[in-house]
Every structure is written in C-alpha cells, then in structure tokens.
C-alpha cells in the first residue's frame, strides 16, 4: 500500500467526495456517541465535574498519532503527503483564545454544534448561525485583520522539527502526558462531582 491513497492517485475526485461523506458519518457518529451533541455535557469540561471532552479528544489524538507514526515507520504512509496547516503562532494563539471563549459561551465548538443541530438542539442550530455570522464578519473585516492573520509565521512546523528531537520521543511524551492526564481527570472528577448547584 502506498498511502495517502488519494494523494498517490489510487482513486479520483468522485471517490474522494464519497469518502468525505462516509468519514463525516463516522465523525458525527463518534461525537454523538460520546455525548457531544449536548452543550451541558460539553461545558461540564469547564466546570470540572465531567472531563469527557479531554478524555475523548486525547484518546482520539493518541490513537491517530500512533497509527500514523506506526504506518510511517512501516513505510506504508508518507507523512510528507499529509496536509499540515502552516504555523502562524500569534494568529493561532489569538484565534484559540477566541474560540475557547466562544465554546463555553455558545456551548459547542463548530463540529459538535453540527451534531447538536442534527439531533434537534435548537441552541446548536443557533450556534451554527452564529458561526456563519462570525465567518462572514471575518471575511468583511479581513483587510483590517490581515496583519493579525499573518502574524507569527513559521511555515509548516511539527513539534519534533521545532524541538529538534526524534518523532518517537514526541510520540512517547504525548502518550505519557495523555495517560497522566486521564489519571488526573479521574481524580478531579471525584473531587468536583456532586458539587453541581
């Protein structure tokens, strides 16, 4: 196998669009299974009595990180052909803070908002309208925001590149951090559960 299969020409655009639909179905199914169609479940992360957001997110990251790394080491997956969003650290720090505030205010992130709206949550649907308005606002204000959008440019940059260490070491560190985080999450939940007002 010579992956990524689309990038190496194993199939064409039509198949890629069908895969978009199928991968999206898997994505939405997993989010809803986890309870992420519910704003109360999601925002519990930020009141510390249910840390499912952290657990699901880091289990997914670790699974895909180990999978891609193992396939790359086996010579099956060419990581240089997998898209990497370039780092603009200042734009991404500011954007991350705004998105985080919007998450706890609105109750969803963009993907979970879609899952919520699809399962009948009116607040999820309104969140989606807000996202559309925000994206339109960004586009209209782009001339004024352009310098911030381009601030902190570092090009395509991975953690192993940036710290100058082998990929395996970063993979091991992220895995260890996730496992320690899961243990800490259970301790925090025990402490904060039952404190709901």
């Amino acid at each position: 196998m010579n992956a990524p299969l689309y990038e190496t020409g194993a199939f064409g655009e039509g198949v890629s669009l069908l895969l978009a639909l199928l991968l999206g179905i898997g994505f939405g199914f997993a989010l809803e299974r986890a309870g992420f169609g519910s704003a109360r479940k999601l925002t519990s992360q930020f009141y510390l009595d249910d840390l499912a957001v952290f657990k699901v997110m880091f289990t997914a990251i670790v699974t895909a990180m180990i999978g891609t790394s193992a396939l790359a080491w086996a010579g099956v997956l060419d990581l240089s052909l997998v898209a990497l969003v370039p780092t603009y650290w200042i734009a991404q720090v500011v954007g991350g803070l705004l998105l985080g505030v919007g998450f706890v205010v609105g109750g969803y992130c963009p993907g979970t908002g879609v899952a919520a709206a699809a399962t009948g949550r009116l607040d999820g649907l309104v969140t989606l309208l807000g996202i559309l308005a925000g994206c339109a606002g960004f586009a209209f204000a782009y001339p004024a925001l352009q310098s911030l959008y381009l601030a902190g440019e570092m090009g395509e940059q991975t953690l192993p590149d940036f710290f100058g260490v082998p990929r395996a070491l970063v993979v091991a560190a992220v895995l260890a951090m996730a496992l320690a985080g899961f243990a800490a999450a259970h301790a925090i939940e025990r402490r904060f559960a039952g404190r709901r007002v």
Partner: protein
Amino acid sequence: MSSSEGGRPAPAPYSNPYLAGFGLGLVLLAAFVLMGRGLGAVGAFNTVVAWLASLAAPQWVADHEFLGRYLGDGEHHPLRSWIVLEVVGLALGALLSGWLAHRVAGTVERGPRASVGARLGLAFAGGALMGIGADLARGCTSGQALTGGAMLNLGSWAFMMCVFAGAYAAAPLVRRQWR
C-alpha cells in the same frame, strides 16, 4: 418534537469516553491514510459564506484573498466540496447515532437557571466568536486541535492549549447559563 406520550424509550447512556475517543481516532486515522488530510468543520461554514456572498458580489469574492479559495475550481458548484460533504456526513452520522440511542429531541440545552432567550442569544454570540477565532487560527477544534494534534503540528498544539485556556477563563462569567 417533544417526547410523545407512552412507550417512548428513555435516552440511552453515552458511550465510554475512551471507546468513543478510540472510534473517533480510527476515523481520523482513516482520513489521513485514505485522503492525506484530517477532519474539519469550519471550512464548510466559510464555503457557505463564500457561496452566498458570490450570489450578491461574485467579483468581490473571487478577488478576496481569504474567501476566494472557498469558491473551488470554478467549474463545479462551490458546495460540491470535500469539507462540505464531510460536514453533511457529520450531521447524518450524529443523527444516526442519536436516533439509535433515542437521544434525538427538539430541545434547548441549558442549565436550570437559564432562560431560553438568554441561552439562544449566548449560543449565537459564542458561535460568532468561534467563527472569527477559527478563521484567524486557520481551523477549529476539529481541523486544528484534533487533526493537527495527531499530526504533532506546532501551531495546532498552541491553538489547542489556548482553546482550553480561553474556555476556562470565561467559564465563571457564564456559569449561570449552565449550572
């Protein structure tokens, strides 16, 4: 679509978070292996904005440094795009899961002390903040934190930590909405 009387099964409990996360990770891994890209969400919103704006001002969108890239190749409809179909799938997959677990219900998620009006106003405001933030960051929790996190992308990890920092910082201000 409030609960119909009699015999409507109770909503099933949510999955174990590690099991759901493992499933999500396998879907993400499949996207990397099959497509050479991860999952996303906010790109679909930008595509819809670009398409709607192009109905009113096609040249403005075509010349727009940020929005123009969401119009596609010009031969096909802008909505015939990978990210739009992925998000349509997201909605279908969530609906399927929710339907199987009896969790589809017309409702407004809010804490016991929050009014529906205030909740919907904050939902819109939060969504607008996220649209701006995700566009600045070149992706949202899916396209940056999840996808870039697994790819060990430096900017994605900076983004992800700031998402948590921003949410924890603002959480006390909107506590009445949820608790």
